[in-house]
Each structure stands twice: as structure tokens, then as C-alpha cells.
């Protein structure tokens, strides 16, 4: 690439890339354990689903000591599952050659702490780089697609968003999923429905969440009176892609689905009250944790999603708004909304904002990233992201897990629980407000910029600044 070509690359893109590269040594400790051991599994030609199964039964047998030592966050006597690789199989396919490549040069050994402890493993920098390289590429892809869908300003707003950077550079594989989701919607807007179905299927094979957007596009095709044969082709390609990806590993996927079905609620949902309850109520809260919470989640999720699809159909919502609404419904109905999940909503909101700008949507966008970011800072808490980088420079010690665990236990429990509960309920409130904004047209629509072929040309301010000058 010559200097002139480099000059044409937007500075914000280079800045975002530089930040992501600088963050390579930093990571969420528990999730780094998952990704590292996924590399080990793949290097040994071993299924991560089998490892999940092994660790789960091992965890179920480890009854008694960790909760009694007060080392666990929740006073539950027995965990039913080990939190390891519980995703669809596509990331395994992607990372298989990279794991094999690394294993050519260095041996890889498993490193797992018991469920409930904190992981402090020395993970070689090369593995961190190999793991994050595809994610950085995916992030650039998301920005490029967002540029096409919503203009440069909104692509920049996404790429430089601190919450997006935290998740994509130091936490999860959300951007890989988002890339396929945005590609699917982009292809729908270009009337390439079969390819869109394939992209959405790939997204669902990265993480399960994009599956909730399948009915959104299906209903939209129905409302737009797209020919039946093309609608059928869309559904057939989506289902065929998912089936082709899942069938070879069905036994493992079935175990993963059990894990998700029985998983207790947590984080940015009202189920955070379990944690609050645990801080004031010392006896074992296993019944609330293992029975009530999953049951409530099993009821609320289909209800919320069903309400969103019904609303989309009755109000003839545009595609971007309907996609946002389905994701919002997922957050309102799901028993568990981990902070990274929220990343999926952000590019969809930016797209919707480009199509039908309003102050209210700008506010929802800000709330949708600021609240999970604040939650993550307190919940993880944020200094623990430094641990993998710290272990790059100091000699690893067999007792590292213990000292890190002591740091985690030093966090004042009740204040921590109350702060998290406050943020979680603010998030739920923000999502309820988002529902209202997306369905009732709350806010001041800027009619001039709506439905322009290039929204960037028509923009009248930064991506998420309030725009009210020509409102009403």
C-alpha cells in the first residue's frame, strides 16, 4: 500500500485500529480462559463441547468447598454447569487453522480454574493476537457496512465507541456475529434475499442471538409482498445453513442448549435481584437460582419476542426499526443479558437513526452503550481486564488464581450488588423507553433526512447529537 492510499483511509479508522491493537494484551479473565482453552481443544482435535460436558460433570461433583469458603459470588451449594464454550460451531471452524498454526510452534496445555473462582492464566501474547486478528477484521467489516447503510459519521460513532472497543478488543466475539447480521440486512435492502438468509444463518452459527432476527426479516418480506418463491427461498436457505452447521455437532449443541435453558438469570435484567438477595440472605438460594429464575426466563423471553413480532406486523414497522425492536424485546425478555450482548443493538440503532433520526433515538443509543459500560466497569470489575497483560510481564506463579480471587473478594458485596441492581433496572427502563420510541415515534423526526439514498450527505450533525432544529 503506498502513502497516498494510506492517506485515503479515514483517521478515525486508524485510531480505532491502533486502540484495538494496543488492547491485545488485555482481556476479560474468564472469557480469555474460554478462548485460550478453545485453542487448546482445537489444536488437539478435541471438541470443546466434549470439554464443556466433562467440566460440567466435574463441577457438579465439586460440591461443598468453594461456597463454604465464601469464595463464590452467590451462595449456591452446587453449580449445574461449567461456563465454557457454549456457542454455535462456526467460531471453531474459523479458529481451527489458527490453533493448528500455533501448535506447530508451541505446545498447548489446558488451564481451567474451578467454577466460581477467578481465572488468572498466563496466555501467550501470540495466542491473544491470533484470537483477536479475525475480530479486528470483523470490526472493520462492521464499520464498512454501517458506512454503506448509515453513513460515515455513524460508522465512526460505532468504531470509536468505548463500549464496542471494550467488547471487541478485550472480551467477546460479538463483532463477528454483528458482521453477518449487518451483512444480512444490507443484502435485504439490495433485494438479495437468499444471500441475506445465508449471512443471517452464518451469524446464528457464531452466536445464537441472530436467530431472533429471522422472523423479523420473514415478516418484513411478507409485509412487502415479496413473491412467495423468494420468501420460501429465504427461509429454506436460512434453515439449511443452520442445519448444515449444527447437524455435525448436534450432540454437543444439545448439551449447550441444556446449559442455556437451565442457566440462572443475571446481569442487565431484573434477575440481578438474585445477587442482591444473596448479599442479604445467607442461606443457600439454590431454588431461586436453579428453578425460579430459569423458569421465569423461559416464560418472559417468548412473550417479549412474540409481542415484538406482533407489533412489527400490526404497525408495519420499517426493517431497521423492527430489527431494533426484536433485539430490545430480547433484552427485556431474556433472563440473562451479559454486557457484550448489547453490542448487537448499537449498529442497528445507528442504522435506524440514519433512516429516521430523532433526539429520543440518540438518547436511547447513548443509554444503550453507557449503562452496560458502567455495569461492566463495576461488575467485572474493570481492573481485572489488566490481569492477562500483567501476567505477560511478571513470572507466573501457581498461586496467582488465589491472589486475584482475594482481590475480587475485597469488593464490598452489598454496595456492589446495589450499584449493579440500580444500573440493571436503569437499563431495563431504557429498553422499555426504546420500545416506545421505536413503535410510537416518540421524539422529533427529521423528515428531510429520512429515506435519502446517502444519509451521510444529508446529515445535519454528529451521529448521535440531538437534532431538533427543524423538528415537528
Amino acid at each position, binding site marked *: 500500500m503506498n502513502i497516498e492510499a494510506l492517506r485515503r483511509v479515514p483517521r478515525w479508522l486508524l485510531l480505532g485500529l491502533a486502540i484495538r491493537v494496543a488492547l491485545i494484551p488485555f482481556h476479560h479473565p474468564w472469557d480469555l480462559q474460554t478462548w485460550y482453552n478453545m485453542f487448546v481443544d482445537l489444536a488437539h482435535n478435541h471438541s470443546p463441547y466434549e470439554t464443556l460436558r466433562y467440566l460440567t460433570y*466435574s463441577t457438579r461433583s465439586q460440591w461443598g468447598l468453594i461456597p463454604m469458603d465464601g469464595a463464590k459470588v452467590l451462595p449456591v451449594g452446587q453449580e449445574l454447569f461449567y461456563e465454557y464454550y457454549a456457542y454455535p460451531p462456526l467460531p471453531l471452524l474459523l479458529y481451527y487453522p489458527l490453533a493448528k498454526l500455533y501448535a506447530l510452534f508451541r505446545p498447548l496445555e489446558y488451564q481451567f480454574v474451578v467454577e466460581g473462582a477467578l481465572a488468572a492464566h498466563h496466555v501467550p501474547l501470540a495466542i491473544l493476537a491470533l484470537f483477536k486478528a479475525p475480530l479486528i477484521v470483523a470490526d472493520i467489516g462492521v464499520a464498512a457496512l454501517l458506512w454503506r447503510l448509515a453513513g460515515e459519521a455513524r460508522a465512526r460513532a460505532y468504531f470509536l465507541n468505548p463500549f464496542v472497543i471494550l467488547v471487541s478488543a478485550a472480551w467477546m466475539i460479538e463483532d463477528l456475529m454483528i458482521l453477518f447480521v449487518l451483512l444480512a440486512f444490507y443484502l435485504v435492502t439490495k433485494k438479495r434475499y437468499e444471500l441475506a438468509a445465508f449471512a443471517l444463518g452464518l451469524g446464528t452459527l457464531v452466536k445464537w442471538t441472530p436467530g431472533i432476527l429471522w422472523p423479523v426479516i420473514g415478516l418484513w418480506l411478507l409485509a412487502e409482498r415479496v413473491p412467495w418463491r423468494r420468501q420460501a427461498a429465504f427461509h429454506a436457505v436460512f434453515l439449511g445453513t443452520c442445519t448444515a452447521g449444527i447437524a455435525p455437532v448436534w450432540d454437543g449443541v444439545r448439551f449447550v442448549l441444556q446449559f442455556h435453558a437451565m442457566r440462572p438469570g443475571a446481569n442487565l435484567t431484573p434477575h440481578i435481584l438474585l445477587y442482591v438477595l444473596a448479599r442479604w440472605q445467607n442461606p443457600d438460594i439454590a431454588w431461586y437460582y436453579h428453578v425460579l429464575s430459569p423458569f421465569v426466563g423461559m416464560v418472559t423471553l417468548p412473550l417479549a419476542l412474540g409481542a415484538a413480532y406482533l407489533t412489527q406486523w400490526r404497525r408495519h414497522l420499517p426493517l431497521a426499526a423492527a430489527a431494533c425492536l426484536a433485539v430490545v424485546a430480547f433484552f427485556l425478555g431474556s433472563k440473562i443479558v451479559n454486557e457484550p450482548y448489547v453490542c448487537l443493538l448499537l449498529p442497528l440503532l445507528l442504522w435506524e437513526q440514519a433512516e429516521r433520526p430523532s433526539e429520543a433515538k440518540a438518547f436511547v443509543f447513548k443509554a444503550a452503550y453507557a449503562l452496560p459500560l458502567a455495569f461492566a466497569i463495576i461488575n467485572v470489575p474493570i481492573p481485572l481486564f489488566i490481569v492477562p497483560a500483567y501476567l505477560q510481564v511478571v513470572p507466573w506463579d501457581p*498461586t496467582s*488464581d488465589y491472589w486475584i480471587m482475594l482481590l475480587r473478594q475485597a469488593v464490598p458485596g452489598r454496595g456492589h450488588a446495589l450499584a449493579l441492581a440500580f444500573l440493571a433496572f436503569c437499563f431495563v427502563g431504557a429498553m422499555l423507553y426504546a420500545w416506545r420510541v421505536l413503535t410510537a415515534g416518540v421524539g422529533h423526526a427529521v423528515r428531510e433526512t429520512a429515506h435519502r439514498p446517502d444519509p451521510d450527505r444529508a446529515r445535519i450533525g454528529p451521529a448521535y447529537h440531538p437534532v431538533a432544529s427543524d423538528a415537528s
Partner: protein
Amino acid sequence: MGLLIILSLRTLHNLSTISATEAPQELRLDGGALTALYTLNAGMNKPAILNSRGDALVEFSGWDSFVSVDGVSADLWSHAFNIELDRARDRAFLTWSSVPLRQDDPGQEGHHRRYQLEQVVTLLGPRTVVEYYIIPNEPVRTVDLTVGAYKWYLRDLRHEGDTFSFLSADLTRQDAERRLQPGRLTQVTVRSLVPAVGVRPLVNQFGAYALDFSYEVAQPRTYERTLVARLEVTEGPRGPAIQP
């Protein structure tokens, strides 16, 4: 809506079943050729390995297996334990916890270290692999484990390195000590798959009745599983003759 209600009730039922605690007298993991039998109210049979005819090939003992963590020793039966069976994979997980040792020693909690010892039994056709892992919940320096594998009695015992082979009879201990003739004799091999610091048969007036395998690890990782011992029990061929 009806479907949702049915699904909800079914889910609630399943969740309640899963969270319920069963308290049977024994557990059996049937692997086809071999079976692992756990007796829950006694220190023996942790587990006993049975062949397809129900004859015990060897019994891993809780009473006569010992773990010593930073010099403080206790038999495994003095620990709390919990068992989970993965029947689909013919695997059993048994974890001993040092909690009762600490609770029974008020004011001296620091005397006994906080740890768990996990045993994983995998049935692989005519072979069974038995592994022991230490999981310290605080920094520890050394862990010594002695695994006692019993059979009343080990007939025609042969020994080479960390491998023992013997004939297992279909007799109880009392019948064997009354010198009754066995109806069946089964060839059994017990082999240590990681280097043991010591192996020895235990002998009384009636003959050899147990095999002791001793292991040692230094500085295991806290909150992580560190392999201490791995043994293999095979229903099958014999080793060379034991030297007197």
C-alpha cells in the same frame, strides 16, 4: 398460549427434578464390559470395579486411601464427598472436600488446608482408568496421596515396575479365608500410568489383599485441577511372575 403453559409446566417439573437431591445406598455406572459400583454409606467401594458377571476385580478404598496436604494427613472417608455420573460417556466424578476436617477441628481451621480431591473414573470397554486430581483452595506446598486398591485376595500376584497382575476370585472375604474353592477366576492387571513414588502389596496370613500406590506433587495450582495419580484396571492379560 396452551402450548406455552404446557411447556412452562414441563420446564418447571424438569428443573425441580434436576435440583432435587437423591440419597440412594449405592450408585452403579454400567459401562458394558465393566461396572463401577459406589457404596455411599461405607468407606469401601469408591468404587469397586465389577466385570460383566458381577465379580469385583478390585475395590478402591476410602478408608484405606490417604491424602496428606502440607504434612496433615487424613483418610478419604473422613472427607465430605459427592458423586456425579455421566452415563452417556461412561464416566464418574467423585470429589472429596476437606470441609468436615476443618469443621471438626474448631479453632484450628488453619491446621487442615482447604482443598478438594477429585476422582474421575472412565470405563473404556475391558479397561477402567481412575484419575485423582488435587484442587487446592489456598496455596499449598506438597500433596501426598496413597491409593489403596483392595481385593480379598490377590491370587498369584505378579509385579513389574508400577504394574501388578493377579487372579481375582468370585469369593467374599469370609469365603476366601475359609479356603473355599472359587467358581471363577478372572485375570486382572492394575497399572500406574504416571510414575508412583512407591508401590507395594499389603499381605496378611491369608495372602496379599491390597495394593498401595503412593504419589506426590509439589506446588499445585490454586483453584485448578492438578493430576496426582492415574491408574488403569484391565480385565485381561498377566504380567511376568512376581519375585519373592
